[in-house]
């Protein structure tokens, strides 16, 4: 099977969908002539032309809102935010318009838009560029949220997101763009709402999403090597819809849970998952559900300090040991 990067996987997914469906367009700042700020869309303008690959001015509220309107009339716009952090410029368009239009029209109107871009810290770009808004997005009924942690999922989820009839916020990660894994050629789909057990185990469930999963896998290796602890690592992949069943099954098996994510702790996805577990699997728990997040402050610029602010292999390892105490 070919080994390709997360970046190439996204490009392949969008390209395949553009070829499959004439209503799919990719739009955003610098996606066409510049080949993408992070080169996700490299070569796509040359291949698909300016009708399908469209450069926009720096007008997030305007062009994201325009994508919502175009989706209402049946296009399937894939809107790139150069950094997902800029979603807040378009907040009203996303959370008032995209999220509510179907409901307020009594189901008369669909909004099959994908809003995608990198949502992560760790590259010293400072507080304004490092937001991880998955819990904010998922808070809004009407919005779907996915956060792929690897190239295989990135491709399969992107294809599903584009075909989905609801607005999907697709949160990527600049640090993962260059990470590669085996990805089949051609058209497989990863359904929204299906978690993936990345590593089976019996002693603790380390559940999470996004790049934290890549770190958690390494922490799990350490737990095994140093303490013979068998951690199960569960990648949610999709935040809303959420695979509650896989979460509960894993926790019922291990009786302990650590949730890892890059977001800040208040009302995070992990908080939601902890609540679900205490509601539906309380009797199975041997310890309170623990969470590991970024340190609760805006993203610091200082490169070595930002490393400490974010989840790391070491911090996850320690938190897992604490959960097992």
């Amino acid at each position: 099977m070919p080994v390709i990067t997360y970046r190439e996987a996204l490009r392949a997914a969008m390209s395949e969908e553009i070829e499959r469906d004439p209503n799919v367009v990719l739009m955003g700042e610098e996606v066409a002539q510049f080949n993408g700020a992070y080169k996700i869309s490299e070569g796509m303008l040359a291949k698909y032309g300016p009708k399908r690959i469209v450069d926009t001015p720096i007008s997030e509220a305007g062009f994201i809102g325009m994508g919502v309107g175009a989706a209402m009339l049946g296009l399937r716009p894939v809107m790139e935010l150069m950094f997902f952090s800029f979603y807040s410029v378009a907040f009203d368009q996303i959370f008032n318009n995209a999220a509510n239009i179907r409901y307020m029209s009594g189901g008369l109107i669909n909004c099959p838009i994908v809003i995608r871009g990198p949502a992560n810290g760790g590259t010293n770009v400072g507080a304004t560029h490092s937001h991880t808004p998955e819990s904010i997005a998922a808070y809004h009924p009407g919005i779907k949220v996915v956060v792929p942690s690897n190239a295989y999922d990135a491709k399969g989820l992107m294809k599903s997101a584009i075909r989905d009839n609801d607005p999907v916020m697709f949160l990527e990660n600049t640090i993962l763009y260059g990470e590669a894994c085996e990805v089949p050629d051609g058209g497989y789909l990863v359904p929204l709402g299906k978690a993936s057990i990345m590593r089976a185990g019996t002693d603790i469930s380390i559940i999470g999403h996004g790049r934290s999963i890549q770190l958690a896998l390494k922490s799990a290796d350490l737990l095994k090597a140093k303490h013979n602890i068998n951690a199960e690592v569960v990648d949610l992949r999709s935040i809303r819809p959420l695979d509650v069943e896989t979460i509960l099954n894993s926790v019922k098996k291990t009786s302990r849970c650590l949730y890892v994510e890059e977001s800040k702790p208040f009302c995070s996805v992990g908080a939601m998952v902890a609540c679900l577990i205490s509601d539906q699997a309380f009797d199975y728990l041997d310890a309170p559900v623990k969470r590991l997040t970024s340190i609760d402050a805006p993203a610091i610029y200082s490169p070595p300090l930002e490393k400490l602010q974010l989840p790391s292999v070491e911090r996850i390892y320690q938190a897992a040991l604490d959960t097992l105490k």
Partner: protein
Amino acid sequence: MTKKPSSSKKTEVTDLGYDARQAPINIKLGQDEKIALYRDMVRIRRFEERCLRSYQQGKIGGFLHLYIGQESIAVGCTSVMGKDDHIITAYRDHGHALAVGMGMNEMMAENYGKVTGCSKGKGGSMHYFDPSRNFWGGHGIVGGQIPLGTGLAYALKYKGLKGACMAFMGDGSVNQGAVHESYNLAALWSLPVVFIIENNGYSMGTSQERSSAGPSLAERAEGYGMNWTIIEDGHDVLAVRDQVGQALKLAHDKSLPSVLEIRTYRYRGHSVADPDTTYRDKAEIEAYKSTKDPLSVFQLSLLAEQTLTTELIQKIDESACAEAETSAQFAEASPYPSLEDIKKDVYWEIDNPADRKSVGALFFD
């Protein structure tokens, strides 16, 4: 259909007879003042060249947006600031920071992420601030600073101060809704703000024609009945002074806002990470450099009038290089923030526990 004539004043500074040196604001400049303008531009350039080296050595993280080529604007604009005039800009902020008098040490240390930096290593290159020098940042979100600049002007008017705010943005920023909302507020409420568009021709890899409708960027002010001016000779620090001086006077005397579009050019990529290969050719950069470099042009004119000598030019250059080098050493030798520092400067009440009035948890680690 009727076309209503606009009451706004517009100027396009393209008169062939125009000589910025003869403008009242410039004619009274002493030799030392002219040398100071020149020196400030040289200091910006040498500082940034040193930043670039540090970036290439891996000492600076994230983004580094260089101002090289645009020095005449920050220096020209800030040179006409009075005590109650304020400025705010975007992420390409090194020039403005040095021009208002911030020190290279605190700036370089900020780039290195050190606790001795102007924001204690928390903001980085894009987020310099110095309220004590009326400099309100350093902002990373395109256009996001423009409502703030409008608010600074609002506060000046509210307090009855005879000051204005210069709110800087790039040519790409004019397409943000917040900019237009600010234009309307400023015009509607007669706020003493000067919106300054540093038009370097590109927003990242997008040329002005590919991003902005309409005949010019400044002309959008017309829709709000605001004064607007295009300064073609943005490389000429004296032309910048003249026009900005007039706009500031309008703000001071009549509390009227205006939009200035200053034509300029950046020599480096959008940020240091931009390979700068998809949207312009090297010849275009060279053509500008060879005829309109703000430092060279001003240097030549000061040489011609014998304000500068070759020895003095060399001295200024050497001292700017030395100052930049010292700042790199200072940054290198400075400590990083501590782990505890991450959670300082988030809430006033946490930093001032004795005066805390609210109760309850503020952090959730």
